[in-house]
């Protein structure tokens, strides 16, 4: 089945998932976006421009680093880190923001709106907009603004307008609501740079494609280093973009296990987590049919995670499909486990990972010892932890042991 994987279908569906559940006012914009994206995908000049920016501006390709100390510590499979944390602006988000900003410029749209959770997508989008001279408005939940002060200031330095969102849980979900409302109102001259593989078609496809540079590089680098494909790749899941970018180029390689790691917050047996695939059920939010955290009446529940970037009660439609089809496997990691993994990576490898990425590290550390020493495991280190040091410090009681 996966040998001929061609999803989404022409209507933007991944099996039952995905689609275009948006107000009619947005239909023309997303139909036009799809048309323009398909043209840009085949356009050598567009692709060359994007490749040049990814190389010279973002700093790609990013290293695939063999983490010897971590491998010895875990005592099993060889652990590699795909260093998306070394990208300009500190996370994988820039791969997508730059691609979409170029696309917006190509469509003649001068204004950009975006949502952000951790602030990483906001910073990446503000950066791309500064570079390409686009006007940028970012919606961010007040709770996230509190958690990610420094990123708010970075966005403002880069010339973006950051608008706080008080409604609902005042986190990523509510920022998406507000960005969608803004887009409906300003659709004629504005492009919405959605930050993950969610939302209405074509966003899940387009964001996946822009992020696939992660998996494409990893595949080639691993082949060069080990002469074979990795046995397992592990990535954290908020909306699901770094993981989808890592997984997609491996989908047809059935020998490669794909593992997505959700945030278990205080535990999946509590109501404070963000494990939509593990504990949720299918429904419609933000333009797509996907797994959601919701109550029996279809009201969306608030997610919880120590990491703002995973604090979202849904997960992209393609992951929803990959879960049901069994091609990918989804696990979850608690706040405490992620914190522990963060500290461990700092001490063993001298790398401060983002709290989001630390979820992937934590799961890999559980899995590696169960694997053979001859096997290989790649962790997508989606971002660096500079933005999180304040959260970590507070959590450690201000001392840092």
């Amino acid at each position, binding site marked *: 089945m996966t040998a001929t994987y061609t999803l989404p279908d022409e209507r933007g569906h991944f099996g039952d998932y995905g689609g275009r559940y948006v107000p*009619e*006012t947005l*239909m023309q914009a997303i139909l036009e976006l799809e048309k323009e994206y398909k043209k840009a995908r085949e356009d050598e000049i567009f692709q060359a421009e994007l490749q040049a920016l990814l190389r010279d501006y973002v700093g790609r390709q990013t290293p695939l680093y063999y983490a010897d100390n971590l491998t010895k510590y875990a005592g099993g499979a060889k652990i590699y880190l795909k260093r998306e944390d070394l990208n300009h602006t500190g996370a994988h988000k820039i791969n997508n923001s730059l691609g979409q900003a170029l696309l917006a410029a190509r469509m003649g749209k001068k204004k950009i709106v975006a949502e952000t959770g951790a602030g990483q997508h906001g910073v990446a989008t503000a950066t791309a907009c500064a570079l390409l001279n686009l006007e940028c408005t970012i919606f961010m939940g007040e709770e996230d603004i509190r958690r990610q002060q420094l990123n708010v200031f970075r966005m403002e330095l880069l010339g973006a307008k950051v608008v706080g969102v008080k409604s609902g849980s005042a986190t990523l979900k509510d920022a998406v609501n507000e960005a969608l409302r803004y887009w*409906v109102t300003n659709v004629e001259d504005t492009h919405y740079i959605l930050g993950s593989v969610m939302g209405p078609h074509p966003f899940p496809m387009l964001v996946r494609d822009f992020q696939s540079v992660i998996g494409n590089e990893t595949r080639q680098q691993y082949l060069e280093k080990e002469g074979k494909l990795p046995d397992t790749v592990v990535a954290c899941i908020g909306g699901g973009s770094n993981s989808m970018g890592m997984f997609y180029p491996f989908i047809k390689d059935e020998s490669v296990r794909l593992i997505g790691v959700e945030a278990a917050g205080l535990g999946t047996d509590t109501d404070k987590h963000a494990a939509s695939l593990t504990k949720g059920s299918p429904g419609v939010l933000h*333009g797509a049919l996907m797994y959601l955290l919701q109550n029996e*009446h279809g009201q*969306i529940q608030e997610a919880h995670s120590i990491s703002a970037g995973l604090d979202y009660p849904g997960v992209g439609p393609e992951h929803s499909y990959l879960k049901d089809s069994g091609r990918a496997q989804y696990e979850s990691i608690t706040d405490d486990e992620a914190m522990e993994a963060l500290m461990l990576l700092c001490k063993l490898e001298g790398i401060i990972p983002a709290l989001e990425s630390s979820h992937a590290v934590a799961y890999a550390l559980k899995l590696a010892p169960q694997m053979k020493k001859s096997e290989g495991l790649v962790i997508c280190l989606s971002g660096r932890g500079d933005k999180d040091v304040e959260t970590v410090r507070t959590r450690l009681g201000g001392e840092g042991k």
Partner: protein
Amino acid sequence: MNRIEKVFQNLKESNEKAFVPYIMAGDGGLDTLAEKITFLENAGATAIEIGIPFSDPVADGPVIQQAGIRALQSGTTLREVLAKIREIRPIVHIPLIFMTYMNPIMAYGIGNFIADASKSGVDGLILPDLPAEEEGIIATIAERAGIEIVRLVTLTSPLERIQEIANKGKGFLYAVTVNGITGARKGFNEELGKHLQNVKNVSPIPVLAGFGISEPSHVEEMIQHCDGVIVGSKIIELFESGKLDEIETLIAASKPESIKL
């Protein structure tokens, strides 16, 4: 013939315009629903749009968002609203149309929902996050049960698309008057009258204008160009502040003759 088709046939015969107010079920407690519905019917409403609260209403502005939050806080569920409508349906003569988002219906189960809505006497459905591309998941089942899907067209929809959408329906077409979300506006785009006229020209069914309409003067202006209006946020505000006489004035603005009498 569905109740919606009938009222519009009657309006046409008597050369009158439609006024469809929107209220949020459960705002002020579900017990106030019957009271509000009968008040609106007596004030001359053509049909009533009943909002079912959803936690993440992306097509709605602050007033309807807040009404939804109040309704959810008082524990309103789709199941209870359906039961309530079933109870009051015998004393209400005008069409009752649910407006909600897809997720509460999906959680209920689409088939179960249509069956229960039909039993309760719901006449139509407005689903702002269900464009023509996705309506297959519910439209056929709804129509088989005699429940009309009321479809939206907007300022950004090309005329060909408007025509296609209009041709799918039997009740009325909902012409959105602004690029944006629900909520009172001071004024409208100058081209709006022309747009509504264009929509009317391609639509085989009545065209009602909605979104942003909040003043009697808006109502008088809109009905020059189409078959009636839908008013949401303003009605909610007026119920909230107890200004029932202003609701009557607003509805009366859709019936110029009756004012003169």
